[in-house]
């Protein structure tokens, strides 16, 4: 069965299913450290990964494990110290500042936790903003913003003051804003962290459908493995390293399956 025909939550979605899909993002041996007084903080330590079209990859790990830096590097928000980052074969780490800015404006969508608002703008204006910054016509941008808000089940938020939105509604608006430029890669950092179980499930379903139906590559990070509903593979990050493709264990946590050794070997086979 081709990957298109398998639902995002289907256990048959093992890594192998994406082998034919186009590689959207390839990280090779990426390292990044932040200079600090006294000691340096190693945020990324030789990370390699491949994210394909229509794939939703989950990264979990405690705070300080380097998840956010990984997402920043993947999104072209930060350049790594060593290693290569390629987006559809183009090296991000070799791009000029202007090229990188253009890349971020058009190819990447970002969703962050919390309140990523520009104060004083209405919901519709928030969502239009990425298009307006790209020099798009105001009316076209507004139409696109409405379309994406509706698709993200946030159509009813248009007339609401952004301050009055619930956490879940806020994330939906943030996703609509990230998608309005129709990026091919969406990075989501803690997008479901502060949500209740049901909302978390709903947002993950939305992201899963985004990967599955819109064929957008999704890279999502969260401190909790249990948030990774529908992601595959689910990677565990620790001290700037990917400590293993622990999809089976993580999925067991997500779907409340018993953690059996046989299950893992079956998934890897």
């Amino acid at each position: 069965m081709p990957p298109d025909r398998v639902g995002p939550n289907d256990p048959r979605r093992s890594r192998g299913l994406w082998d034919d899909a186009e590689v959207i993002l390839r990280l090779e041996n990426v390292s990044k450290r932040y200079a600090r007084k006294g000691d340096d903080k190693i945020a990324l330590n030789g990370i390699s990964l491949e994210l394909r079209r229509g794939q939703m990859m989950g990264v979990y790990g405690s705070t300080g494990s380097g998840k956010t830096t990984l997402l920043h590097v993947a999104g072209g928000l930060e350049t790594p110290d060593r290693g290569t980052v390629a987006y559809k074969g183009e090296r991000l780490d070799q791009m000029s500042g202007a090229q990188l800015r253009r890349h971020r404006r058009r190819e990447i969508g970002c969703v962050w936790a919390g309140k990523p608002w520009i104060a004083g703008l209405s919901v519709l204006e928030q969502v239009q903003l990425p298009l307006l910054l790209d020099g798009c016509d105001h009316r076209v941008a507004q139409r696109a913003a409405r379309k994406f808000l509706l698709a993200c089940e946030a159509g009813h938020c248009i007339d609401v003051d952004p301050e009055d939105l619930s956490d879940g509604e806020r994330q939906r608006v943030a996703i609509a804003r990230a998608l309005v430029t129709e990026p091919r890669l969406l990075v989501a950092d803690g997008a479901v962290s502060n949500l209740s179980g049901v909302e978390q499930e709903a947002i993950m379903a939305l992201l899963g459908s985004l990967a599955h139906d819109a064929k957008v590559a999704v890279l999502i990070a969260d401190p909790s493995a249990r948030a990774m509903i529908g992601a595959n593979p689910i990677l565990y990050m620790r001290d700037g390293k990917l400590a293993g493709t622990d999809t089976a264990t993580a999925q067991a946590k997500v779907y409340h399956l018993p953690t059996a050794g046989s299950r893992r070997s079956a998934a890897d086979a």
Partner: protein
Amino acid sequence: MSATHAVLGLLLNKPTYPYELGNQLERRLGPSWAVNTGQLSQIIKRLEKEGLIERVGGATGARDDRRIFAITEAGIQEFERWFSTSAPRGARLPRRPLLVKVSLAGPQRLTEALQQIDSYEDECTTELARLTSEQAKIVDGPIVRADDEFLRLALAENIIEKEGQLEWTKLARERVSWLLEQNAIWPSTRGRAGAANDEARGAREELFRDMAAERHERPKPGKRGRDSAA
């Protein structure tokens, strides 16, 4: 139970005005037995209709607050029957509207539910203070009055109940706060969006299909698009 049998009990000793009955109910049995004039008038009317009490004097006229009522033989029998039967439905548990609110609040409104628990606690504290001061007003004199002792007991029942409710609010706050931090499973609720969700699903399917086709109708950059040629 209603105040019906309490009224019969009060009339057992001596005939009296309805107004006096209302006063005595609260004074002898505590604030939880307070009834307003309308309720009292209804009780009187029903008792009179059933032949359990009768008018024995007072001013003539239709207004029953001007008349004196006494218990009839049938009334005494009814009171005796009620007195000898134990509470038929057993100890009925009170319904707590707040708990209903909290459990139906849904995940988005848990914080609001916490605020309601807080204000409920405030109400309980105020009420408890009121009941305690009421109880303190009963002063023991040289003469032992049975009524005083019963009123004190009635108030004690209310006070103990309020103390229990206060205890409960503490537990409720602790558990609801805990629940806020959990990935609890909630019975699914249709969100604020309601029926709009179906519309959204259709819109999403269409939009996502377009995105997958990469028919990129990327809006053309206007004059402000600085590096559109790049």
